[in-house]
């Protein structure tokens, strides 16, 4: 029996699923990227270090912020550049705002239709007018922040190595702060929709990897932590990660210590639950899910909880920035040879950039490992575990269940096929 889901809709980039069962045994369960090979790592070779954030932003139209920040941090690590507390705050604001608008889109417009059996997200707006308006409002809060701080929503312009090219206009930040209260309410409205959903029953043990630090629900800095108790520096993580290439495939899957693992909202929530805000914890309790859970479709629930947490954190940082007198936009630095790793939490999991540059700032080597490339093995193992059960269902229902699981991961085939 063959099960094929060709050119899945409602994902970032294009991908397909191919599965085969023979007498109830899985013989194949594979995710395939339908994007062309883009060779971004290759095209960076020989270029100036400052081009890395500009070019890698173009890997992904939904999460360009995280590519800009990760490339920037990796270059700063390579040249041992320190940045100001103000720069760190603005970067954190950008990343959390990116998570707000990406999660808002994925939750409501890409994932929800599967659960309520509507095939067109625009029709969803008619069926859930209040909730749709709430989702649009939350997304707008995120996109407005990215525009104010980054200069543009898609492929932001202002963040650079050493700091920012231009500082945000405080009156713009104040105007965004005026919609904070209604945004938080809207986020809660969106979350309520998901608390009422019936998630598929599923469980397969894995390991969860994410950033972790002492002060916060980490997104832009920290060590790499796993649910199984590992705690290592990002560079050490990269030293032990295997990238596997198979013939005719444009995505390189990854394993850590020979095993598949999970990254993303559910991984972050497992590793950093205690750092969630009280409101976000309350939202998680509203789902009634106990930790640890090995049901990866709950990644959607974790995204919903992160939506609330991220809106609140954006509000906090906005207030701080509005009150503080701005210092210089960027720190001056000297170009020197070196190697460096950057790791930042993208909406769908930890993104790694590695660069080696020479003493004139030219890129000698580079490696980018995206969240989707990391979790693709884990998703395929989940699909293997899930298929025998789903195979007995009527075709339409079976396909819908498979899509719920695939979309719950929030895969980005554009990023994976960089």
């Amino acid at each position: 029996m063959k099960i094929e889901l060709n050119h899945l809709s409602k994902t970032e980039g294009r991908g397909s699923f191919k599965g085969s069962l023979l007498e109830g045994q899985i013989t194949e369960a594979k995710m395939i990227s339908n994007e062309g090979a883009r060779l971004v790592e290759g095209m960076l070779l020989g270029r100036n270090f400052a081009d890395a954030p500009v070019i890698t932003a173009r890997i992904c139209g939904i999460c360009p912020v995280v590519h800009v920040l990760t490339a920037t941090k990796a270059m700063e690590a390579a040249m041992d550049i320190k940045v100001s507390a103000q720069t760190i705050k603005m970067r954190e604001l950008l990343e959390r705002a990116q998570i707000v608008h990406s999660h808002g889109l994925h939750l409501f417009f890409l994932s929800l239709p599967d659960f309520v059996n509507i095939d067109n997200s625009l029709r969803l707006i008619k069926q859930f007018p209040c909730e749709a308006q709430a989702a649009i409002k939350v997304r707008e809060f995120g996109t407005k922040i990215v525009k104010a701080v980054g200069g543009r929503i898609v492929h932001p312009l202002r963040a650079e190595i050493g700091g920012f090219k231009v500082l945000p206009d405080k009156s713009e930040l104040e105007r965004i702060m005026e919609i904070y209260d209604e945004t938080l309410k809207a986020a809660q409205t969106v979350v309520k929709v998901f608390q009422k959903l019936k998630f598929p029953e599923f469980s397969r043990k894995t390991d969860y990897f994410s950033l972790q630090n002492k002060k916060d629900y980490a997104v832009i800095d920290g060590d790499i932590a796993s649910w199984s108790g590992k705690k290592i520096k990002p560079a050490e993580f990269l030293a032990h990660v295997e990238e596997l290439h198979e013939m005719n495939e444009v995505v390189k899957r990854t394993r850590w210590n020979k095993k598949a693992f999970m990254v993303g909202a559910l991984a972050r929530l497992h590793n950093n639950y205690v750092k969630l805000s009280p409101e976000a914890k309350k939202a998680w309790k509203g789902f009634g899910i106990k930790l640890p859970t090995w049901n990866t479709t709950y990644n959607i629930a974790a995204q919903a909880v992160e939506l609330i947490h991220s809106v609140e954190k954006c509000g906090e940082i906005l207030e701080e920035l509005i009150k503080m007198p701005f210092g210089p936009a960027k720190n001056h630095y000297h170009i020197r040879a070196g190697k460096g790793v950057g790791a930042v939490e993208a909406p769908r999991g930890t993104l790694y950039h590695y660069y080696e540059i020479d003493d004139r700032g030219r890129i000698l080597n580079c490696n980018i490992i995206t969240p989707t490339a990391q979790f693709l093995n884990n998703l395929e193992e989940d699909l293997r575990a899930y298929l025998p059960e789903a195979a007995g269902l009527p075709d339409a229902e079976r396909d819908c269940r498979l899509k719920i699981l695939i979309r719950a991961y929030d895969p980005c085939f554009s990023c994976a096929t960089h």
Partner: protein
Amino acid sequence: MTKKPTIAIYSLTCCDGCEFAILDIPEKLLELLKHAEIKRWRLLDEKCPPPDETYDICFVEGSAITKENLELLKNLRERSKFLCVLGNCAEFGGIHRIKNWHDKEQLCKYVYKYAETIENPKIQNIEEMVKFDFVIPACPVSGEEFYRIVNEMLAGKKPKIELRPICYECQTRGYECILQKGQICLGPLTIGGCSAVCLGSKMPCWSCRGPLPEVKLRPDAYKNLMKFLSERHSKDEIDKAMEVFGMKDEYLKLSQQ
């Protein structure tokens, strides 16, 4: 009641950023839906369209990297009354075109173990692949400009982009000229209409909207700019800036005129 015109939005290999630029102005999208039917947009719709589905206006973003990409592009041309190219990747090949300036086999080997099994064609301009009716330029496209142009099309007007250089928009907004300050900025050669968004953030213009037709006809402006830039920068630095949005071939042609 007359039937609403049908629209489709397709993408080839790219970041999908032009689609997000459209999605990020939801009020304009909802308004558009009153006047047109979006028959196919995979970002928001589950249905797989029949292979012979036709469209009044079809937007295509992204570069043709796989054979499947190229076939789809040609096929969409056949099925659409009006084919509108969306963004720099579709028009000039975008960042993907950088590989044309390298040993592309070597580049592929750097990324993939089994490089020989990976499709790795030379990246081309849109006019080398299909006939098209209009281009909405830039990386990414401006959502505002997209809706203005779509609405003009729906009103039966011939859509238009003002042909004046980026410098006009930069200077009228009072932005500091970073070309004068020594950066590689191609603003004087480039089609405006983006509100000089990059310059507003002190990011130089690298011509993602493409060269002005008058620059192509009379390359004096190009030659003067190159003379100015080459006093301050190496040829390699200038070339690399032009490669990012697929402009190097365009401007090379001018230097030979």
